[in-house]
């Protein structure tokens, strides 16, 4: 069992994840992860078949930082605004302060001329640590249902 406060901390974490990513506040986004952490995006096709290949694999916070630096200083990509809708947040396992949490997401992208397209949809399967009133990501796995990615992946899913 987890307390109501812990559950709210988990909900807040996902709300902050969406709002920081969509506002391109990547330093704040990064601070939702613990110093020892991982982040991966994998197509459901591979996940379901037990194939290890990801679309993006950051095995450490340093690799996440490198991604952000590349995004901000090296990569070129379509000018767009992201909007995450995260719902169905569910705690599936509790081990002390470590929680297994799943949630579903929908990510829309709007281009520079204001046209919206549904970009990706899928499920998060994460390990979250509760520390006081705040929850943090330890490992985040983004499983993308539509593994045939429209355009490209630049900003975080």
């Amino acid at each position, binding site marked *: 069992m987890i307390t109501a406060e812990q559950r709210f901390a988990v909900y807040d974490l996902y709300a902050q994840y969406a709002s920081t990513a969509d506002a391109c506040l990547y330093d704040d986004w990064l601070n939702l992860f613990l110093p020892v952490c991982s982040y991966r*995006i994998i*197509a459901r*096709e*591979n996940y379901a*078949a037990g*194939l*290890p*290949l*990801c*679309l*993006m*694999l*950051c*095995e*450490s916070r*340093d*690799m996440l*930082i*490198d*991604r952000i*630096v*590349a995004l901000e*200083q*090296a*990569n*070129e*990509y*379509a000018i767009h605004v992201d909007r995450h809708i995260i719902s169905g947040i569910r705690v599936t396992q509790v081990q002390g302060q470590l929680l297994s949490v799943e949630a579903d997401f929908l990510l829309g992208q709007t281009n520079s001329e204001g046209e919206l397209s549904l970009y990706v949809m899928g499920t998060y399967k994460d390990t979250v640590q509760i520390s006081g009133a705040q929850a943090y990501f330890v490992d985040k796995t983004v499983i993308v249902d539509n*593994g*045939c*990615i*429209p*355009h*490209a*992946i*630049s900003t975080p899913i």
Partner: protein
Amino acid sequence: MRKVHWPRNDYSRVPYYLYHDAEIYQQEQAKVFRGPSWSMLCLAAEIPLAGDFRTTWVGDTPVIVQRAQDLSVHAFVNRCAHRGALVRRETSGNAQSHTCIYHRWCYSQKGDLTGIPFQRGVRGQGGLDKSFDKAEHGLQALRVEVYKDVVFGTFSADTEPLSDYLGPMMREHIATLMRAPIKVLGYQRQAIDGNWKLYAENLRDTYHASLLHEFLVTFGLDRATQQGGVAMDDRHRHNLTFAVASSDSDAEANQAYGAHKLNSDKLTLRAPALLKFLPEFEDQRSLSISSMFPNAAFQRLNNSLAVRQIQPKGVDKFVLVWTFFGYADDTPEMSEHRLRQMNLLGPAGLVSMEDAEAIEIAHRTSRVDADRHSVIEMGGGGEISDRNYRVTDVPLRGFWSYYAELMGIEPEGAVR
């Protein structure tokens, strides 16, 4: 089909409408993809066992690739002979036979029509005429050849043998890449809103690589100042681009890039293992990517190994399928390294994500003023030949020369 006007006979000017014209698209399905060319279908390692199959596309024609009970490999059109429905809907599986769900017509592992429900009707009524010959209604077969565990198919009886089609350059590159039994690590798929030929060009364009893909330049993965070059087959339809890492210096690169300042003095990776190159081939090339006309690329970038397949989806869209692999005898550390280095490529690739945007913006704006044309003149016009430098887009002209030949749209006095 309207007569194609090439402003120059060396393909240094390509009319925009070739990327946008619906009739051109239909013609290239018939004359290029179902014509006398070989397309890459899949890797043999994806269908290792009797009964294993994969579904894929040759151009926009759906195809089943199947390993039969006798372990021979077959390919046939994934479209029921009865009403034209897709027979096999999964992307992969293992099956003794293929049954269309619509009216349950059934086909063998070699595509032969073996079963028709109610063929003789019910109680002597209905059914097919006695003269109906099942042998005439199998799934249309492709000719299949396997080279170094890569499966290729062609629709045309006139296509030269695969070995000749690939030529020494492609054969050597594929043989090096497939030097040992492989294991598939997984797939990446990407849908790009552009004409497939823009990607065929992109693969042959070494000029763009170190300009568009800033990450490559910044971290010295691929610079125009490195040793390298481009090589083509004798018909100029295939292309190989290669480079040797650490064959230039930051100082030399900074001087050459001039105003387009390199970032390398201010950017460093916190996790440099991403870029580590563990030599594993006899040549010292850290980058070696070949593109095979019309639908495939074979890639080595450091230790990231993959084949890419181009699937046209109409004039305005294509899907790119990346199949990443390692070798069956890779150590766990090497497998991890390859999986990590995947970050460089694919739709989220640190050095490849820009291609989608470049193709989409080129496609979007070339639709209007279709009578205008692109300019392909780096490395000079005229003769189409190999170069031992990398600031060149001559292989694009090679692609167009063979494409025009197959399409029957060569200009007078065309350079081949």
